């Protein structure tokens, strides 16, 4: 029952598949498993995984990833396992799929919520900068306005240049696409005629023969 198991790397907490990594046993019989030499070398350099930014330990310690949740408590190493029971195991497998799905959803939402604060900050910064620093791109008494601070809208045709550039790009792409299609068509036609020609040639040869 205990044949194959995915271990966790001590440093970065990633999965260690069978046949990978190194296991170091200290004199006090504590085991340290590493997924690759990067983690092993970092351990030998006495780096602290809780301070190394790319490790899971760092992320959990700084609350960047979901650390305390009901969906995470399902996966735990148990000291004794019950006897094999097919029904129980199939139930477990199905439940496991659902649990993992829920867990992933929750982890994603945790991160999104965390990042949402940033987007909110940036939105406020944008509003502030438009209020206070508009003079850098538009003189207060300008006649050709880009942004009208009273109506808080872009003036029509303001970014005509940008729109024109965009249109140019799109046209170029379209033309390029059209050109490529035309080329492909021509090549096909050429091939067809070639084939027809060779066939004719063969036919003629056989005719001759």
């Amino acid at each position: 029952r205990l044949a194959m198991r995915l271990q966790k790397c001590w440093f970065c907490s990633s999965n260690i598949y069978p046949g990978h990594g190194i296991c170091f046993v200290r004199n006090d019989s504590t085991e340290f498993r590493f997924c690759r030499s990067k983690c092993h070398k970092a351990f030998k350099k006495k780096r602290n995984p809780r301070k190394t930014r790319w490790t899971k330990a760092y992320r959990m310690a700084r609350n960047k990833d979901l650390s305390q949740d009901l969906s995470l408590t399902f996966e735990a190493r148990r000291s004794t396992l019950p006897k094999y029971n097919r029904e129980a195991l199939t139930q477990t497998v199905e439940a496991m799929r659902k649990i993992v799905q829920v867990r992933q959803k929750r982890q994603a939402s945790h991160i999104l919520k965390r990042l949402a604060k940033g987007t909110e900050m940036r939105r406020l910064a944008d509003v502030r900068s438009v209020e206070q620093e508009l003079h850098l791109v538009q003189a207060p008494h300008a006649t050709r306005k880009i942004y009208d601070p009273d109506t808080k809208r872009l003036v029509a045709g303001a970014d005509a240049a940008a729109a024109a550039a965009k249109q140019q790009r799109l046209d170029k792409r379209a033309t390029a696409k059209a050109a490529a299609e035309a080329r492909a068509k021509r090549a096909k036609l050429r091939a067809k005629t070639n084939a027809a020609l060779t066939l004719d040639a063969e036919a003629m040869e056989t005719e001759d023969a």
Partner: protein
Amino acid sequence: MVQYNFKQITVVPTAKDFVDIVLSKTQRKTPTVIHRHYQISRIRQFYTRKVKFTQQTFYDKLTAIVTEFPRLEELHPFYADLINALYDRDHYKLALGQINTARHLVARVGQDYSRLLKYGDSLYRCKQLKRAALGRMATIMRGQSSTLAYLEQVRQHLSRLPSINPTGRSLILCGFPNVGKSSFLNKMTRADVEVQPYPFTTRSLYVGHMDHEYLRWQVIDTPGILDHPLEDRNNIEMLAITALAHLRAAVLFFLDLSGQCGYTVPQQVHLFNSIRPLFANKPLVVCANKADVLKIAELDEESRALLDGLQSEGVPVMEMSNLTEEGLIRVKNEACDLLLKQRVEAKLAGKKIGEPRDDKPRPPMIPEAVTRKRQLAAQGIEVEKKPRKLEREIELEMGHDYVLDLQKNWLLEKEEWKQDAIPEIWEGHNIQDFIDPDILERLRQLEREEDARAGAGYYDIDQPESDDEMQAIRHTARLIREKKALRKLESRERKGVKGAKMPRTGKKMSTDDVEEGMEELGVDVDADATAHMSAGRSRSRLRDRSAQRRRDADVAADEERRSRSRSRSRPPRSESGVRDAAMAGKARLMAKQSQRKNNQLARKGEADRHVFIAKPKHLFSGKRGIGKTDRR
């Protein structure tokens, strides 16, 4: 109780040695070199360190003494009384107390002089203070010389005390001097105690060990006891009394039948009766020793009657002889058995042995197969034990068809499960880790939570208003950001490290640039707006008209004199932007003053940057008269 080991008490040096040890240690372990010209703080620190070190060393050594000597309250009363008998408890306690006070005094001296050293203002004063401190500590120790000598004596004697286990099985041999106790000890154990015809040969307790009934016994030989009251007893007798008083042992009272010890049997019996109280609660055997010389039967009437009296009281009286060794084993067995019986009875009386702990039945575990077999056997049926078919036999039978199936002996609910391929890993998870009897329940709980959350809108991502307003603001903010970034870059370019920094006005700004800039900001400008900025206009505007006319004439004259290359439109820098003479004078003054500081400090200016000769020949060539030319 603290465990004391009398043999491992550190040696107590004499006062003189003590002082020598500590002072030499101070000399070796602290820095020794100090000079008059060092900083006073350093000098103070140096001497303070010495004082503190000496204080600490004294303190540590005295503490070791005080802690390693046993405290009488913490010892078994047998040892406490023994020490009292040997060394006098009061004297002992006083000695240790004096060492304790010496410790505190030394500490106090050290503290005081460390404080004084803070105010030492020269090397000589600090040195004298240190000398005074160490001297006082040494004097304190010299005052303890008698105490230390006494403690050393005590220590030596303590380490030679016999190691008696006060709670072990022991036999105590007592009686008048010269009755044959030590000979008995020599015979029974491997001890080799001095046996001499004069009384008080044995002057202290001796222990021997022997075996009886597969157990270790201690046999304790005491010095003889004389027949006088307790108050008159001397130190040596007190040892025996102490042993008798505190050890739970069997007592063997020795009688000399022959009277060779110098006392008659009645006298010995009298002694026996007088120390009878000490034998309370102890199994007692009276050994009538030296039976080879005179047997009990050959005793006179008086003695015989006394011994019979003793026996009738329940005290066994046994004849024995050390010389011929008759009766020795009998005596030993009798005494040991009596003591063992007493000890066992005490144990039984103490703990409730044999009573059940609680009502839980704890029957013996007999396997089913065995009970069945017994039943059948009782009925008379013999069950043949079938030998199990070995795997090897099966293999040989099946030949090439044989497949090793390790799972076939598994004990599962259903047979068909035995051939299942059990999954272990799925998408980076161990399936083992999810196995839980309550998993379905917990999953249901989880799903309920999820539904609640979804219902409450936990997973709804707030879309920021993508209305026109926000889009406009975003677009404009982006433009502002780009503009700011450009400005930063320009500013950094201007701050370039290479070359001189041109002031902002140093760069020529054309009217075209001004127009372009304004157009970028959305202001339409025509040529009129920038007309006044062009350089054609003369910059020196003077209020006074007549003066101006004169100046114009002067300027014209000057210009004619100057070369043609100099353009009219550019006035000299000393005159550009200067309104009148006063201002010109001030400008001149300011220019001179701004250069003054740099010039006075002979600092490098703008003109000094150029290195005219990078590698002057005289520095980079030539051999040296003496020495090496590794560096230039």
